[in-house]
């Protein structure tokens, strides 16, 4: 009895182990918060780290898995942030609704933010992704600036002065839930035939085309999904900070996510998590260095890129995010050639 029990438990544990781990992690964090070992400062850094994980993972889908180059990802984030904030703060006046209705309104806001970002993603993706090459980079760069300029002009949502009084609904539970949900979704997506198509496009677009993959369709699909997740992440960001303004979603922010992505390892979901979490926490940890803080931060980044050009976790995944085909991973541009994989 015991042995069979153990044997049947094993795959179950394998399946639900990660979920169990997440729940345990959440409970431990909440207990530590109750005991005041983790104070509001640590919580807040964790919230931002969670939002950054969402942004980096979604960027990874476009840049890391589909091989396109999006450098205006903060634009989608701002659309999502404003979309969600308009729903929760202006449509349903957040202060005047009963407490029970707050969560549905919050989720509706996030959904709307995501949908707005995805629709705009499709609008700019369709013309630019039909072409082969780096056109997407230029278009997304311009897109980020256009969104920023437009948001500055729309007075009802605060214009350049920004939007204030957004309720801070996004607590640790919601951020953690969305991070887990997104990672699970992305992992299954990359596992699926869609994911294989994305990776085929990344590895060789012409060959993928020749094999009958509708490259334009899959590129737009990947781009829209990434935009949706970025929109949701933006919505969460707005409800953490409770204040948003167009200028905070500028090119610098987009560049931040590119750094998180490539430092963590593009083409690896684990890399996105590690990159985003580590690089969100690192500047805070280095605060004791005062003015030398950002110098050391930059040196660490340079060192990582020099000695691990594929990123910290590049080409690797933790077991529950792993896809069992080593060739799926991106070859490092300046790294060592792996033997036996480059056979034509």
């Amino acid at each position, binding site marked *: 009895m015991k042995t069979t029990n153990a044997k049947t438990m094993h795959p179950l544990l394998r399946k639900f182990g990660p979920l169990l781990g997440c729940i345990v992690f959440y409970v431990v964090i909440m207990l530590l918060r109750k005991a005041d070992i983790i*104070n*509001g*400062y640590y*919580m*807040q*850094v964790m919230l*931002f780290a969670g939002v950054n994980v969402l942004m980096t993972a979604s960027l990874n889908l476009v840049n890391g898995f589909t091989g396109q180059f999006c450098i205006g990802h903060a634009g989608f984030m701002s659309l999502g942030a404003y979309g969600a904030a308009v729903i929760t703060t202006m449509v349903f006046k957040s202060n005047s609704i009963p407490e029970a209705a707050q969560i549905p309104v919050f989720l509706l806001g996030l959904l709307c933010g995501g949908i707005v970002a995805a629709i705009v993603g499709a609008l700019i993706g369709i013309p630019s992704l039909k072409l082969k090459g780096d056109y997407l980079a230029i278009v997304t760069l311009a897109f980020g600036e256009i969104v920023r300029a437009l948001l500055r002009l729309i007075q009802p949502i605060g214009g350049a*002065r*920004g939007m*204030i009084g957004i309720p*801070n609904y996004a607590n640790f539970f919601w951020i953690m839930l969305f991070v887990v949900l997104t990672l699970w979704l992305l992992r299954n997506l990359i596992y699926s035939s869609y994911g294989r198509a994305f990776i085929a496009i990344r590895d060789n677009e012409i060959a993928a085309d020749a094999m009958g993959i509708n490259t334009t369709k899959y590129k737009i699909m990947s781009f829209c999904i990434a935009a949706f997740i970025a929109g949701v992440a933006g919505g969460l960001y707005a409800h953490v*900070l*409770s*204040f948003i*303004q167009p*200028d*905070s979603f500028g090119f610098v922010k987009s560049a931040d996510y590119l750094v998180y992505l490539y430092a963590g390892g593009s083409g690896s979901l684990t890399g996105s998590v590690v990159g985003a979490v580590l690089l969100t926490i690192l*500047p*805070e*940890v*280095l*605060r*004791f260095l*005062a*003015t030398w*803080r*950002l110098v*050391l931060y930059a040196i*660490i980044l340079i*060192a990582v890129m020099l*000695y*691990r050009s594929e990123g910290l976790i590049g080409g690797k995944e933790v077991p529950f995010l792993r896809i069992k085909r080593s060739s799926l991973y991106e070859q490092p541009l300046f790294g060592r050639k792996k033997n036996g994989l480059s056979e034509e």
Partner: protein
Amino acid sequence: MKKILRILCLALCVIMAVSVCACGPSEKKGSVETIKIGLAFPMSGMAAMAGKYSTHGADVLKEELGGKITVGDKEYPIEFVVMDTEGSEEKTANVYQKLIEEEKVIAIAGPDSSKCMLAAAPIAQNAKCPAITSFGTNTAVTEVGDYIFRACFIDPFQGAVAAAYCDGQGHKTACIMFNNADAYSVGLKDAFVENYNGEVLAIEEYSGSDVKDYNVQLTKLAAQNPDVLLLPNLNVELGLQIQQARTAGLNCQIVCGDSADTPDVAKVAGPAIEGVAYVSAFSAESTDEAAKKFVDAYVELHPDELPNSNAELTYEAVKMIVWAIQNAKTLDRAGVRDALAAIDGLDLPSGKMTMDPETRNPIKGGIIMQYDADGITRYVSTVNP
């Protein structure tokens, strides 16, 4: 390769370990507890210059205090905890959390920009920790809650300063031309009309910065022959307006808001700029006693530079906190808040300051500056409305 990587990882671990130790609760079991004041300013990033001036301004007060503060008849060591906001809302929110939760500061001065303050203010309000923004002019900042103050005056307040100056100069009649599409312009005009004791003869308006010809309005105003012409408009418009006003025969005193404080205005206006006065927050040339003392102390500490408005406002913000600590009924955050709201006639470099307990905006003096014939600005007087 592997070796280097290993060394690198090790180095990273050491740094992390050291920093964790450094970040840990640093409760000193001393005889008297240290009073900490938080300073949140951009030390890096695009706004690093403003942050440098701000911390230098705070240095002056640090030097004055000499590391200790007397509350009642007890002496406490005082510490300024400076943290970098990078000029970003996210980082400012983190800094505020860290100052409040970990450093346990009694009050926070800074950051200087409205956008960072708007992100940080709800945190301070929820934690019931008094915070003073040095240069956050957006009216929404102090509306966040009763723990949020500001050291600078909000834009419309300049109108009150201009009105007090005109009254002081004995100008009996005034005319105004303003941009009805701009909040800055409208706010200044309203405050001027409300506070001016003389007679406003006529008000003319136009809309938008793309207007380049103001002759119709200015000719009408010239017919009134006023003592003062108020132009509470944006810097891109002022140059042409001043020039056209003189051509239209308005030879009276012209008064503007602080938007006139850019070299471009003088350049566009040409010789017409002579005698144009404007309201400003602070001038290093001020002859006021408190201002002189501050400037001298500042230059002694930082010989290569003169204090600007950032430095002066930060000094004032921290000075207000120090005064509040010394005059608080209870030595905690709530006590300091109540004392801040009760500030009445505190002597500061920009003049006497009284805190409006309702809006938590300061009521204080402004500086009147004037252009000379070469387009150089000169300090005229300090005005306390």
